[in-house]
């Protein structure tokens, strides 16, 4: 082998060697990139807490350490520090702390989110305390001195007023060597969405942003909403799971960028499917290439209210002080600049009271504008004909429910009340009241929700089918039965009313099919099923 050949071989080998070293460098850079999460920063202020609590409650500290907060050195003291004047605070190892972190505490840094959330329906979730639902839990299911159904059931989703145990003078009881305030055990633990906190704020950020890791991927997942938005009276998660949206999500979960830090925009960061957050809260791309900012006011994009017995469209009145009030379209919306009085529910002395507040109207947002905001998300995947037609289908279902069942049944109940058959003070006395209540509160809602989120089975079988069956087979007969308790005359009156109702076209099916119709039906079955 000549020298020159040898040199050429050395040259080639050294370039191979160089190439291999470049691969090594590439591997090295990949290794560094993978370990993106830095070590948590434990500042001097938090060091004491971490040292003790990593032994007392190690998993809790580990959760915090893997949170986004720890990346910036935001730790225990930053959220749990309290004033000595706070009712829920005590001095622990030399620091005034409270385990109760309220939205106001989070607002120290997350001001915008608190702004939006505090005006939303979520923050008001605890205000059902005076509703029929609460009556069912406290009175019908509960007993004096034990309202555990409300405590463990309703309040865990809706939230409750956080109360303290007091002595006969009304002072908060203290316990232990740290003089810890004694909290009412029926009100804590509670992470209900509309929890009413001692500092006056309403709501709980933790309801969606579970502590102490506060993972974005948890908050963005549909299961998160499903803790509360489920069940016979509002099966949103079940409907979502049934729908194509849900199917798409579960099949493509790992490309949804759920743990992306910072913004999470439909049409830019992910595309496979919408989650609850996508449509109701999160950012999406507009045709202009801009992003619509997310909003923690979950009602911003809602045009119908599917909650009450009779659904209405919702206009939004915003007052100058920021307070937001939903106006059903059956109620005339005020004009901008008008000074009107509204009723707010606030906590005073650990009770929910109604307060009349005067305020000037700053803005009125129509239901059409709210719907347009929702449509902006839809349009990322669907074209406008598709979206508009969907809304027509949805609107028609709600109208059908309203017109055929909700309005007539509500009128009948109101008539019975007016006639003294039923009492407003005894809402669950007669079977007809239960039937009516479930008609709009359970199956009626299921039908409307099912249509709103493309869950066909919930719309029909769990929804309108049961609405119709219960309406015809239970409600109407029970109306007459209830009337009967007030005497023959009343009974006959309502028999007439029901009869007149059933004479209308939409109820004619009850009379049975005509001979011609029966024949047609028979022929159809024969040709289809050979029976």
């Amino acid at each position: 082998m000549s020298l020159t050949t040898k040199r050429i071989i050395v040259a080639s080998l050294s370039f191979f060697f160089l190439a291999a070293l470049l691969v090594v460098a590439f591997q090295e850079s990949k290794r560094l990139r993978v370990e993106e999460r830095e070590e948590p920063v434990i500042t001097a202020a938090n060091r004491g807490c971490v040292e003790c609590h990593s032994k007392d409650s190690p998993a809790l500290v580990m959760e915090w350490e893997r949170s986004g907060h720890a990346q910036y050195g935001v730790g225990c003291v930053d959220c749990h520090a309290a004033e000595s004047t706070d009712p829920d605070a005590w001095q622990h190892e030399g620091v005034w702390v409270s385990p109760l972190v309220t939205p106001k505490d989070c607002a120290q840094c997350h001001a915008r989110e608190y702004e939006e959330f505090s005006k939303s329906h979520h923050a008001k979730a605890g205000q059902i305390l005076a509703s029929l639902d609460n009556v069912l839990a406290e009175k019908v299911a509960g007993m004096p001195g034990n309202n555990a159904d409300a405590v463990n059931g309703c309040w865990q989703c809706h939230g409750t007023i956080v109360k303290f145990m007091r002595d006969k003078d009304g002072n908060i009881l203290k316990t232990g060597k740290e003089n810890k305030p004694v909290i009412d055990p029926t009100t804590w633990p509670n992470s209900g969405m509309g929890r009413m906190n001692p500092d006056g704020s309403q709501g709980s950020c933790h309801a969606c942003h579970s502590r102490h890791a506060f993972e974005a991927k948890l908050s963005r997942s549909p299961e998160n909403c499903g803790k509360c938005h489920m069940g016979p009276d509002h099966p949103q998660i079940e409907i979502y799971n049934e729908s194509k949206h849900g199917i798409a999500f579960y099949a493509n979960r790992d490309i949804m960028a759920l743990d992306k830090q910072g913004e999470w925009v439909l049409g830019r960061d992910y595309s496979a499917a919408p989650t609850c957050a996508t449509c109701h809260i999160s950012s999406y791309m507009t045709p202009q290439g801009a992003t619509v900012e997310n909003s923690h006011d979950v009602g911003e994009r809602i045009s119908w209210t599917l909650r009450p017995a009779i659904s209405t469209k919702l206009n939004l009145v915003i007052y100058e002080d920021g307070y937001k009030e939903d106006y059903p379209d059956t109620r005339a919306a005020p004009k901008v600049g008008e000074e009107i009085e509204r009723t707010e529910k606030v906590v005073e002395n650990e009770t929910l009271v109604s307060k009349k507040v005067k305020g000037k109207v700053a803005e009125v947002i129509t239901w059409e504008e709210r719907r347009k905001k929702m449509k902006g998300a839809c349009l990322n995947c669907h074209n406008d004909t598709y979206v508009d037609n969907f809304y027509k289908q949805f609107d028609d279902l709600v109208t059908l429910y309203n017109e055929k069942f909700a309005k007539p049944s509500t009128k009948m109940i109101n008539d019975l009340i007016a006639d003294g058959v039923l009492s407003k003070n005894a809402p669950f006395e007669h079977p007809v009241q239960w039937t009516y209540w479930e008609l709009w509160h359970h199956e009626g809602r299921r039908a409307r929700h099912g249509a709103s989120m493309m869950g066909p089975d919930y719309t029909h079988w769990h929804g309108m089918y049961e609405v119709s069956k219960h309406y015809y087979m239970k409600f109407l007969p029970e109306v007459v039965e209830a009337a009967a308790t007030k005497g023959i005359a009343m009974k006959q009156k309502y028999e007439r009313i029901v009869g007149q109702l059933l004479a209308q076209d939409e109820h004619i099916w009850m009379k049975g099919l005509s001979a011609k119709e029966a024949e047609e039906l028979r022929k159809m079955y024969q040709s289809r099923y050979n029976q």
Partner: protein
Amino acid sequence: MNDASMDRRTWLASAAMGIGLLLSYGTLAVQGMMYLLPQQIGRRGRKLFAGRLVDYKVGGVRTFLDLEGNDILVKRDEEGLKAYSSVCPHLGCRVHWVDAEKHFFCPCHRGVFDETGIAISGPPADGGQRLSEVPLDVDKDGGVVYIEVKDIKRS
């Protein structure tokens, strides 16, 4: 090598060999150097929470620790916030803010720095030095202040 006749092929082969060896072993040497240097110089910093804008009084100074254990002095004036390292540029003692005099003071050799960190008296002033600035960021949404400090943990 002082061969009499160096024809082009030989010369190219030698040159290629020389360059090849230099580049390959050189790369290895660089990687070895990077291995031996534990701290990545010029690495991106860590952002640390430094309170909220509303917590700063105009004209006031708040201190935060960086990851190396040194104070970072954050001052708010009319224009906004500025963060300075507390390490004196003279010989490394730690300066502190004297509110009564509205200046930063270094006790070792009595160096004095004005409100913007420029040395106005003492050995640092003689050397035309100033307190080094620490990058600072204020989040518009929540008025949250972040200071960017050097990360010391990773290699």
